[in-house]
């Protein structure tokens, strides 16, 4: 695993914008960073791929354990959601079942799990499309760990027969100023269309309730609803309980059981079930078991309210909106240091199949503005 400096392509901004990445610059600095790239060996990619598949199996087992033992309190999930989660977990309704494992990896040891982002994962367009087109132009003879685009289309094609016939799949997201959520949602909508599905896009706030059904802006019933909007927010909003009332009418993608996997409360459960697993860091919910640890709110997003402690001393911390949330503790992983740049591997998976990776780099904590830097495979 190497990080190599490189001159960005002339006119790179226009090139990535043409592919959808309109949020390539943030806070005056490139978010899409092609002034460097990462090289992974085939062996390193094999280890990331194997860890991704192994972690997915651990999550399957942990999900079963949570549902069987009804541990929802640990996840701060309201009790009226429990039957919905249990139904969905057992029935396995059609879903993309995609997500991104954030991993610590330095090229030498085994990849270690930080968390699984599988409810509203972003950096998808960057990973699936932008870095691939960059590779095709800059390193056309090299390979890249990236089959996301194809796997997403294949998965839509796979579930298409099980979706409400004759009705479009409605794609929703929250209003947001950078365009990231609109374009990420539109990208997924495009993969669905490529699989032959009819689609419709609208803001999540434009979803209507006519007293018995969810409807779109034309008043048509919404039968399949993709949401780039977190379940933990959906269920506590004014329409939240209508999800329960329409459980036989509207299919949600992703399903509500993702409230288990995407919640960091799963981390101590994984560790309890598989202590010292080679792809896990220790994790607890009560107190740290070492004086070097990370404290994370169970539902924080974009690297908010994270605290890093090394040898009993504060190393770094972020603030945010989750200061009062329940937390978990996780063993501190020493991210590789490329001249002050610390990369985190985002390893994608689609329905159990590893599907590619993206690298985000920053300091000790990866947040909303951490740069996305492309990669190639060599050797």
């Amino acid at each position, binding site marked *: 695993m190497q990080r190599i400096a490189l001159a960005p392509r002339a006119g790179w901004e226009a090139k990535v914008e043409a592919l959808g990445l309109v949020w390539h610059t943030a806070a005056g600095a490139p978010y899409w960073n092609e002034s460097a790239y990462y090289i992974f060996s085939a062996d390193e990619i094999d280890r990331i791929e194997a860890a991704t598949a192994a972690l997915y199996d651990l999550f399957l087992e942990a999900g079963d354990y949570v549902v069987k033992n009804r541990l929802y309190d640990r996840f701060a999930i309201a009790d009226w959601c429990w039957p919905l989660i249990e139904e969905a977990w057992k029935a396995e309704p059609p879903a993309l079942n995609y997500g991104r494992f954030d991993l610590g990896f330095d090229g030498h040891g085994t990849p270690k799990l930080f968390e699984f982002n599988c409810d*509203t994962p972003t950096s998808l367009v960057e990973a699936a499309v932008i870095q691939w087109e960059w590779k095709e132009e800059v390193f056309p003879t090299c390979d890249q760990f990236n089959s996301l*685009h194809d796997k997403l289309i294949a998965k839509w094609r796979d579930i298409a027969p099980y979706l409400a016939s004759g009705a479009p799949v409605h794609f929703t997201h929250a*209003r947001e100023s950078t365009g990231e959520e609109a374009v990420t949602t539109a990208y997924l909508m495009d993969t669905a269309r*490529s699989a032959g599905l009819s689609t419709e896009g609208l803001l999540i*706030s434009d979803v209507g309730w006519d007293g018995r059904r969810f*409807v779109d802006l034309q008043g048509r019933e919404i039968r399949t609803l993709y949401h780039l909007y977190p379940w933990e927010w959906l269920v506590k909003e004014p329409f939240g309980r209508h999800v329960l009332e329409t459980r036989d009418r509207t299919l949600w993608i992703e399903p509500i059981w993702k409230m288990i996997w995407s919640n960091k409360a799963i981390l101590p459960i994984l560790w309890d079930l598989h202590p010292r697993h080679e792809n896990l860091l220790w994790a607890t919910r009560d107190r740290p078991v070492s004086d070097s640890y990370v404290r994370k709110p169970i539902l924080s997003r974009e690297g908010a309210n994270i605290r890093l402690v090394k040898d009993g001393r504060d190393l770094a911390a972020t603030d945010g909106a989750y200061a009062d949330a329940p937390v978990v503790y996780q063993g501190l992983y020493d991210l590789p240091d490329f001249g002050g740049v610390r990369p985190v591997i985002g390893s994608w998976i689609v329905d159990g199949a590893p599907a590619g990776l993206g690298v985000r780099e920053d300091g000790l904590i990866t947040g909303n503005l951490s740069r996305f830097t492309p990669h190639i495979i060599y050797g």
Partner: protein
Amino acid sequence: MKIDKTAIAGMLAVSAAMLAGCDDRVCVDKQGRRAPVQDCGGHSGGGAGAYYFVSGWRGGGVGSVDGVARGGFGGEAAGHAGGGVGE
């Protein structure tokens, strides 16, 4: 892997349409029926037009038009300004 750039161009067009649809205002008449925005003259007590902007929904909170309530999702995102919903 092969990426269909034609499809991506289509995606961008859709994205642009989705972004363009982010109008802050929804206009209704006194019976709560939708009306053309350009005909609206009043909002939150201001103006003197024949139609009214809904105080909820795109203005924040739940609003109702033509018997359909909207704005019942999305409020949490508004409370996380600048944070985004991405993981």
